[in-house]
């Protein structure tokens, strides 16, 4: 088989290719389900019910999608500028640490101010954390993939130190957790008796903001130009360094807000398991969305649904819920492969 470049990409292909890839991913995982000895149709039905089958299922899926939207946006914005921020996980914890610092009694404001303040300090913490590797990248050409990735562990271990040491809540009966966020800072539930909270709306709002910023602002334009062709952008006089720094602040800020969202919306206090790898999954979310900020909403909900649904399926059919990982991973790989077929035409022989 050989590939030839397409002169024109038909519009329908842009949509059918990723959808087809996801269908293929489900087909592939059907084989694994069969292998595990469970009926495919019923398993997938259980997955669907677990993800969207009831008010509870839907709210759980959206609850899980909220931090994924934030980290997905963080990756999408950075990758647009070809800034490979793999450190959303660390930035998420940095945001949560900052929110814990300010939100556990240091400052008390009415909720209308307190919540934006928490998001702000979380964003600043996440942004500043990403600034460090980006300055190293700009000044010394240190590869940011390595530095952002390794910073994750540093931040996590720092949080570890704080939670086992100075920040340990004496009321927590020995558990490594910090003091709870004050009531004014808590994100209210959206549906009575469900865990879905205001953070989801914040995530939606920031997705729209990120989209508008990238599309309509001068800085967003510069981010796109630098991402697509840094040489041409530099030649035209667009400041590469400043653009990358802005991107870093935005990307790190969005990841930091994921931490605030989880802390103030779901847990209420900082623990070490506040994120089951949302920072890393955010990369998959962004890639699946083709780095489009509004697409991130859909892909975050999709991935959240798969994880939630897989839990339900695993309970109903006694299949390992690791299938969710396999499913998202194959979907991601196939979507990336489908991009190839959008840009090139396969020819046999």
């Amino acid at each position, binding site marked *: 088989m*050989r590939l*030839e*470049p*397409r*002169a*024109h990409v038909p519009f329908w292909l842009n949509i059918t290719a990723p959808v087809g890839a996801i269908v293929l991913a489900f087909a592939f995982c059907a084989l694994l389900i069969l292998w595990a000895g469970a009926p495919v149709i019923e398993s997938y039905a259980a997955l669907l019910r677990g993800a969207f089958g009831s008010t509870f299922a839907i709210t759980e899926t959206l609850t899980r999608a909220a931090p994924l939207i934030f980290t997905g946006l963080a990756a999408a914005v950075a990758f647009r500028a070809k800034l490979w921020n793999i450190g959303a996980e660390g930035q998420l914890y940095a945001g949560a640490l900052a929110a814990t610092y300010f939100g556990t009694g240091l400052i008390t404001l009415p909720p209308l101010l307190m919540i934006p303040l928490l998001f702000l300090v979380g964003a600043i913490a996440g942004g500043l954390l990403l600034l460090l590797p980006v300055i190293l990248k700009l000044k010394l050409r240190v590869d940011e993939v390595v530095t952002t990735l390794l910073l994750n562990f540093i931040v996590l271990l720092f949080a570890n130190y704080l939670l086992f040491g100075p920040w340990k809540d004496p009321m927590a009966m020995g558990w490594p957790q910090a003091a709870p966020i004050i009531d004014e800072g808590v994100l209210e539930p959206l549906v009575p008796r469900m865990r879905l909270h205001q953070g989801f709306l914040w995530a939606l709002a920031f997705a729209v903001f990120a989209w508008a910023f990238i599309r*309509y*602002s*001068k*800085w967003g*334009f*510069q981010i*796109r*130009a630098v991402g*697509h*062709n840094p*040489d*041409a*952008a*530099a*030649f*035209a*006089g*667009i400041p590469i360094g400043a653009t990358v720094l802005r991107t870093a602040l935005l990307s790190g800020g969005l990841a930091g807000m994921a931490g605030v969202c989880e802390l103030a919306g779901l847990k209420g206090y900082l623990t070490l398991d506040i994120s089951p790898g949302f920072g890393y999954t955010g990369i998959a979310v962004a890639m699946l969305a083709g780095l489009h900020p509004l697409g991130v909403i859909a892909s975050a909900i999709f991935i959240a649904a798969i994880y939630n649904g897989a839990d339900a399926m695993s309970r109903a059919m006694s299949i390992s819920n690791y299938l969710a990982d396999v499913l998202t991973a194959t979907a991601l790989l196939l979507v990336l492969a489908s991009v190839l077929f959008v840009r090139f*035409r396969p*020819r046999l*022989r």
Partner: protein
Amino acid sequence: MTTVDKGGAPPCNRLSSLRYDPADATCGETMSISEVDEAASGSAGAQPVLRLQDITKRFGALTANDAISLELKSGEILALLGENGAGKTTLMSILFGHYVADEGHIEAFGQRLPAGSPRAAIAAGIGMVHQHFTLGENLTVLDNIVLGTEPLLAPRQNTTKARKRIAELAEHFGLVVDPKKLVRDLSVGERQRVEILKALYRGARVLILDEPTAVLAPQEVETLFATLKTMVAEGLSIIFISHKLNEVMAVADRVAVLRLGRLVAEFPIAGASKEKLAEAMVGRAVEMPEREPQPLGPVVLQMAGVTVTGDHGKPLLDELHLLLCGREILGIAGVSGNGQGALAALLSGLRLPDSGAFELLGETVKRTSPVEMQGRGVGRIPEDRHATGVVGDLTVEENLILEACGSPRFCSLGLLRGGVIRRNAREMIERFDIRGADPTTTTRALSGGNMQKVILARVLSEKPKVILANQPTRGLDVGAAAKVQELLFEARAQGAGIILISEDLEELLQVSDRIAVLYQGRLSTPVAVEEADMQTLGLLMSGHGEFQRQKGARGHAA
């Protein structure tokens, strides 16, 4: 390689292992070139060496090749003439097996060629010299030539034989090059010779040369043409791809003209004229803009003793003196890599001179950046449209504001003014005749000429006082090149001084007011175009003649 079935027979077999060759079975080490030639000429005239039958190739809605039928006779040079995008390269890619034709087939020496296999094409005796060379820079000439013809795992055994054979070929065809040298130390002309030797070594009887003169100095072009004539005299056949009429007239026996994927004309060169060729190629008569004399304006750019040193301490520009006035086009000739890049970098705001004075509009340039240069009224047309000129994935309207995206005209309170930008794009598309584009077209989809017009629109609409035009018409078809030149003339009439860097001497002689040659970072004394001639300029381009530093000359006396 193709000799696998023969257990890695020495390449000597290859030259003679064509199917019609009676010597095939008996080929030994002693087989000489003249024997092969006899074998080839024995079949000359009996049948075409190459026959393309109804080749059709579509890319989506675009038909790149539309039922093209061509024959190449033994011992002739066939020029394949056509504008960019006419389908020349596609056709040759099909011939060499890089692409598979949708319809039609190819016969080489009477045998049908399997589609889509470069290996089969090589086995059939077809050799291709690409426009961009495919040599390993870190290998010697010998290694590059032999690479791929020897079995992978065998110990190096045939070096002496290969060396002898290369020496034979080189001497026979006048392709002088030292086989022990590393390719990275070779000049462009020498590299091309290595490419040709490589094809011959693999037994090519049909040689395809894709725009072989684009990178050569005039003298090198003549040497190349002499070599090509020797080859066809020996019975080889050559397809010569070009869009330069003079060269086609000089070297070809026959010419086939492609336009928009169709074969529109095919005639012997003997009865053709340049005008006839141009018309066939473009489809209409093209009028090149005429240079009208203009009264010189004030000095806009001055460089005195400017030296720029490269990374390895080698001077890129060596005490350069130059003076540019308004309403003047100063043509900078020279083979690329002789300091053009450094000169362009100075004017683009990418670097400062290491020593010497650099003045723009009477002010010394002390700090530099692209924005600084824009602020001083320098319009910059970069050498490589795709790499540094436009952001291909952005739309036309976005590329038009790439430099001015922060100006209050297009941006208020950090937000882009979409309406203004859209209107600006419509106006530019209209004024600069950017075809096939609306404001939201992805720039990558434009042809080279229209992409260049986008850059010109962006640059010229700022009314620059000094314009750097670095290879502005390279790779453009005749019509687009004429438009670009016309726009440069227009800017000149409005008072701009233009530095035009080009490798195309003909263009420089046609467009410039004065011409100077850049050779190893030194500039020759600029001469008025009326006093310039190809011969002298050609000699200067290869370093023969007087350059500023030797004479201690200062710019020019305008």
